[in-house]
């Protein structure tokens, strides 16, 4: 199974969406899946941008001999699409409310995820065969911190050639 983030973070995102919209089935919209879509209402999740390091060069700290720890802030965009024959805007409203509710956000925070903002919702119905399929779309901007160890080495000692001149 391919994870855009890692399993821990994707499971946390899944749990957050499920807690926010319990009436809908939640699936990851992976491009290589060929299974049928679930019965409506359902929500698809997709990381459409990132994760990408933001800010200037990350902070780094001495960890041990020759080893430094780099701390990055990574940002990504989670695309959420809601498919429902009715009440799809209600489901979307529940999700938007959850972006400010501590009880829901704690699911993300426990795994190091934070929400920076959102874009939407956008109502984007589309004709499928001969009927309209109701869809609502929301982009959620999220971030997390990541530490990476690097072993660039250190200058342990320097050899100098020269003379020591007596200081008067």
């Amino acid at each position, binding site marked *: *199974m391919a994870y855009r983030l890692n399993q821990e973070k*994707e499971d946390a995102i899944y749990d957050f969406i499920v807690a926010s919209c319990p009436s809908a089935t939640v*699936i*990851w919209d992976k491009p290589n899946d060929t*299974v049928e879509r679930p019965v409506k209402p359902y929500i698809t999740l997709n990381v459409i941008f990132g994760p990408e390091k933001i800010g200037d060069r990350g902070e780094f700290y001495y960890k041990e001999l020759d080893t430094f720890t780099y701390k990055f802030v990574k940002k990504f965009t989670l695309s959420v699409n809601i498919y429902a024959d009715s009440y799809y805007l209600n489901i979307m409203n529940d999700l938007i409310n959850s972006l400010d509710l501590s009880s829901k956000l704690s699911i993300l925070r426990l795994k190091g995820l934070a929400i920076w903002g959102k874009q939407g919702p956008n109502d984007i119905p589309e004709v499928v065969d001969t009927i309209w399929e109701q869809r609502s779309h929301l982009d959620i901007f999220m971030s997390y911190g990541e530490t990476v160890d690097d072993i660039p080495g250190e200058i342990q000692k320097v050899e100098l050639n020269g003379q020591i001149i007596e200081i008067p």
Partner: protein
Amino acid sequence: MSLLKNESILIIRYPTPTLVKGHYIQGTPSFIYALANVQPINGDELLLLPEGNRKKGTIKIYSETEIIDNDILRRVDNRYTYNIAQINTCTVDVALDSTDYTCTINGTVFTHTSIVGATILTIVAGLVSEINLGSELVTAVDNLDGTYTLTSDIKGTLFTVSVDVNQSVVLDVENITEEYKIMQDKDYSVHDIPHYKVYGFLMGT
């Protein structure tokens, strides 16, 4: 090739995937062995396929065992095979008197000693007689033109042949095994061809 024969196929059927934390997890497939008749598709059916799929190896399969969308089919039996017999043509190039003419087949030497006044035709006749009296599974035929043809009695069985300096030999038909593969050795995924219905058929055995 025989399109009327049934062949064994293996149907690999995956259950409906289960959702785990939003990810579809493929279950353990079941394996079903069945008999099926495999046919190539014709030009009209080829046009019914989606564009981009018309160059893929597509076949039609008829079976009493249910086959559903998303099944994967595999060939089970070996391909049907048939063999072609090896044929060599030997030519007596020069007729010499009181000379041993030999034809060695699979190491067995067949000798005909020419008489005084022998001709190419008599030499060929003598050699053909000697070869056919032997126990090698090769039949010699006098072509009545100074040549004789050696044909393997068992299709698919190779034989070696060499002749003396007064003759020459050529290989006409190589001993080969022709194989017809109805289903190739790969997985076939099942898709319905739209607007195409099979209302019934008789299955031969």
